[in-house]
Structure formats: C-alpha cells, structure tokens
C-alpha cells in the first residue's frame, strides 16, 4: 500500500553569506495512513523545516517527498497550492488566524479558495467550528478569543476541507498545559476520523501521550525513532 507520507533523502540548505547552511541532511521517513507521528529535537534542528516541506510550503534542495504516492517536486506552484488546499491542513504555534476576520470567515477561507458556494462555505465552516466546540463563538474575531479558542478555530480551518494529513508545528507551544491537553484531545479526535498527523513538539510528555511514533531530529538528521506510549 502507498504511504501517507514518504520522505527520502530530504536535504534542505540555505545559502547564508555565501556559505551553505544545511538544515536537513538526508532525512528518510515514511508515515502510514492514520498514524500520529511526533517530531522532537532541539531548537533549530530542522523540525519546522521538515513540516513545511511535507506541507508544500517549502521545497527541498534534494530528496523527494511523496504524499499518497504523488511527488511534490513534480508539482508547479499552482498544483502545490491545490495540494495544500485539498490534502493538508496546517496548525501553527501562533495560530495564524487573520485578525480582521471572524472565526467563521477564517474557517471559510480554505473553502473560498476551493471554490465552494457561499451557502456551502457557511454550512461547513459552522459545522467544523462546532466539531471543535466553538459553535458559540463563530462570529468572534481572534482578538476576542482566548489562545485555546484561537487554536480551536485554527483546527476547524485545518480540517474544513477534509484533508488526509494535518501538520501541526508546536500546536500547544503557546498554551498552558490544561488547554494544551484539550487541544491534544481534539487532535486525537481528528486522528480517529482517519487523518494522519505529523506534530512537532518540545514536550516529551505530550509526544508520549499522543504519538504512535516519536522521531528525534538533531542537527538535521534523524537520531532516533521510538514507538510512542499509545501503541
């Protein structure tokens, strides 16, 4: 069967002041459909870079990324946008909601770019917000929401287009531990709905509580892969 995510020899370099800065060096990794994988490692080790490349926000210097068998390198920018729109959902440490729009408008955004009708957009956005327990705050702007509520809205946005994969870059990094656990609970629900999850975190306890596998990256290379506490 095809892997949900298949990364092979992934290298990412930046040229800094004429010198190449190697951020990822030959990372190889497969994630199966429905799996929860946590990526750990010290700051600057390349976790976010890996996630961004898998999510089609960044392109590798070398190596391949296949999502459900499709090679991202073969996609032009237009196609890559469609990939981000349809197949992946993102969660960020800083939520990244558009501050001038209500929660509902924020959640509608991926549907808007997907060309859904206004009625369908509203209906699906409201349903997604309700599924993360934010049904009563749909017309609030991000500034009127707590951090946990903002991350819930972001989760609704991440799943509203029914992506197979959700990429979460330190989704609980800005939250207190209780709120963080609520968010993790919702991520488990996402996973129960069949989505593959790739999560970066600095918190080993969190990783152990949700991950099927924990991957540790140090200085751009995979140092270890362990089975998580849940499996």
């Amino acid at each position: 069967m095809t892997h949900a995510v298949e990364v092979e020899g992934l290298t990412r370099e930046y040229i800094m002041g004429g010198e190449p800065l190697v951020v990822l060096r030959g990372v190889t990794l497969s994630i199966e459909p429905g799996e929860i994988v946590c990526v750990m490692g010290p700051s600057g080790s390349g976790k976010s870079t890996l996630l961004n490349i898998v999510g089609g926000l960044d392109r590798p210097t070398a190596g391949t990324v296949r999502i459900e068998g499709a090679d991202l390198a073969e996609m032009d920018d237009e196609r890559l946008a469609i990939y981000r729109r349809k197949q992946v959902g993102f969660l960020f440490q800083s939520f990244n909601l558009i501050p001038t729009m209500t929660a509902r408008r924020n959640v509608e955004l991926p549907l808007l770019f997907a060309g859904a009708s206004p009625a369908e957009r509203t209906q699906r956005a409201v349903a997604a917000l309700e599924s993360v327990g934010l049904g009563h705050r749909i017309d609030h702007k991000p500034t009127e929401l707590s951090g946990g509520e903002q991350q819930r809205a972001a989760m609704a946005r991440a799943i509203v287009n029914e992506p197979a994969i959700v990429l979460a870059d330190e989704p609980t990094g800005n939250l207190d531990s209780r709120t963080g656990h609520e968010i993790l609970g919702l991520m488990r629900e996402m996973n129960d709905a069949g989505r593959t999850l790739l999560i970066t975190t600095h918190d080993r306890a969190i990783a152990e509580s949700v991950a099927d596998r924990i991957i540790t990256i140090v200085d751009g290379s995979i140092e270890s892969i362990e089975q998580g506490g849940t499996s």
Partner: protein
Amino acid sequence: MRFRDLSFLVVSNLRRMKLRLALTSLGVVIGTAAIVLMLSLGIGLQANMTASLGDLGAATHINVMGGGMGPMGTEGVVLNDEMVEQFGAIEHVEAVLPSTYVFSIQDVRYRRYQAYLNTMGVPMDAFEKFGYELEEGRLPRNNKEILLGAVIPTSFSFASDDLFMGGTTPTAPELDLLGKRLTAKVVTYPTEDEYKSDPNAPAKEEKRKFTVVGILAPSDMQTDQTAYVTMDAAIDLNDLDKRKVSYENVIVKADSVNSVAEVEQTIMDMGFYTFSARSIQDQLKSVFLIIQGVLGALGAIAMLVAALGITNTMTMSIYERTREIGIMKAVGASNRQIKRVFLGEAAIIGMLGGTGGLLFSAAGAALANLFVQALIASQTATTGGVSTETTSFFQIPVWLAIFAIAFAAGVGLLAGVLPAVRAANLDPLTALRHE
C-alpha cells in the same frame, strides 16, 4: 473561484483602510472629473456647432456695431448712410441692413397684456433682401405698421398695473396678433435746448397705435425677439433729424459663408466692431480648445498621480498584510487567486474614484453650461433680450459615464498590477514569518 466569491475578502480589506482609501481615490476623482469634462466638452461642441450657428445669427451675416471708440481716443467711426453705402460697395457683399433702435417705445399693450419689446427701425426694402421669412402677413409699408419677431406673440404677460406692484406677472397665453392693433407707450425726453431753458421740463408721454401686419418665421435668437418698424417710423418716434441719423447696428450679408471672413475683416479695418456667427464660433472654439487642452493635461497628470497613489497604497497595504498573504497561501490560495484579490482591490479603488469623479464632473458640467450660456447670451443679445434656449456645451452621454467608471477601474487595475504580482509571488514561509 469566481470574482464574486472574492468580493468579501476585497471588501473587508478595503473597509479597514477607509481613510487611506478615500485619500487614494481622491486623485482618481480629480483625474476622472477632468477627463470626463474634457470629453463632454468635445461631445457638446460637436453637437452644438451646427445648432448654435442658428442661434448666433445666419451664417452669412456680419453684425457691425456703431458708436465704438476709434483708435487712440479719436471719436469712433459713425454708422451712417454713407457707411452703409460703403459697406454695400465691398466685394462679396450682397445686402446691407442698417437698423436703429427705437428707444422711445417703452412697452406695448394689447388688451390686458403687456410686453417690453426691442423695436428696430429698418428700411423694409433692405430687410426683404435679407430673406427673412414671414410666418404670416407682410412687411410694414407705413409708419403705423409693425412686424413682430417669431417669439413675441408668446412673450406677453398680464399688464403690471392689473396686478400688485412689483409682483411677477404671469405669462399670457400665446396671442393671435396678426391684424390687431398694439398700443405703444412712447416717451420722449426733453432735447438739450429744452432742458437748458427749463431743467424741469417733463418727459412727454404719448400713446401710438401700430397694426401688426406680419409675424416672422423663427430665425436667429435676436431677430425672434425684435419688432420691426419702417425706418421713417423709427426716426419719427425717436424724434431724430433725418439728415443726421446714425445707426446702432448694421447687418451686412455676405454672398457666401466662405466670404464672411474676408468681408468681416474689411469692415473691421474700417474701424468697426463686428461679430458674426463665424467669429463668435472661432472665439468659442479656441477658448474651448484651450479648456479642453487644460482639462486633458490636468486629467492625464491627475490620473498618473492617482495611479502612482494607488500603487503606493496597495504596496503599503500588501506589506502590512504580508503575514495574511502567507496564511492565505498556507490554506491553499494559489498565486493567481492572491493576485486577483489585490487586483480587485485596486480596481475597486479606481472605480470608487471614478464614480466620485463622474459625479463631480456632472456637477461641473452643469455649472459650466450655465456659465457659457450666460456668456453667449450677453454677447449676442445686444439689446438685452436673453435667450431661453438651452445650449449644453458639456454633455455626458451614458456611454461616457460608463466609460469613465470603467476607465478609472482600468487605471486602478493597471496601478495594482505590480503590487498584486509581488503579493502573489511572495514566498509563503517568508510571508508567514513576517511580523
């Protein structure tokens, strides 16, 4: 994704930059207004060149004014019979019509109705040669007969002593005056000699009756409002000495439109002020050309500045929204969609400005029309008759209105291209990291 679906993004973006939006659109408002005025003037002129020809007098007629000051303070040349003869001798002159204003007639009455007339005395044989057409009747043959301009039968109002003093008098219905007798109030002021012997000598007032023997067919504005009597009647009414008579106004008829300029120049060289439909049009044309040029240049400059303003505003707002662009890309916006959002924004700024400019130019055109009409009226109506004809020198047809808004939107769109392309090509990660 259709544009309609993007509109909420565009509108919500615009809503949060109201002041900046207003300032940015202002340039477009000015530019559009100037360009619309320029074009509307061009359209109006074209539409009016032929129409106004009739208003200003027949195309072959040259109006010569008497009583002007001569060069270097010398006394001006006098329009007398000698001059009339000289005009008649000029090459390409077909006929000469001297006229003298009957200033002693104050008003005329018919039954309960009253009208203030411009009455001119003309030699009827010359008048006939000028080819003025009669609507009905014939030309006056003696000094008890009068010929009325085309609009006079509709120019009567109720006699003012029938009503309260100073109140506006309602207009009378159109009167059937042919064959009827009008009573003119003729006032003769004391002559110089009489005044010397008795400074308190009163003005003499008498009533004279005239029979309307003819009504003219509509022709030019001035003729339509004038009543004509024989030259003898005018001399008599004005109490003039026949040998010393001089005319206020002589109309010279050229044999063709092409010779008007030459004849007019010859008469001007003799020291007279003249005007003709041609010379007024030439003056108007050159004035309008200057106005059009100024408006065009102003419009082009304003539009250019406005376009730069839009580019600048868009660049600024895109910079401020860099992170949002990153977010939109992360949730699946393609470069093309991002470009469309910002192009839409720029086009709407242009369109708003264009709509504002259109409104301003419509108001400006209306004002300018009033002004130009007043100007023409004062130039043509030497005896105070003001035309009620409405001549619109600025015209804004529907297509021009639509064009103006579309053009402004187009300018906005063009001005937005550079910033929109830059926004579209932003690297999503760099954009997301932007503070």
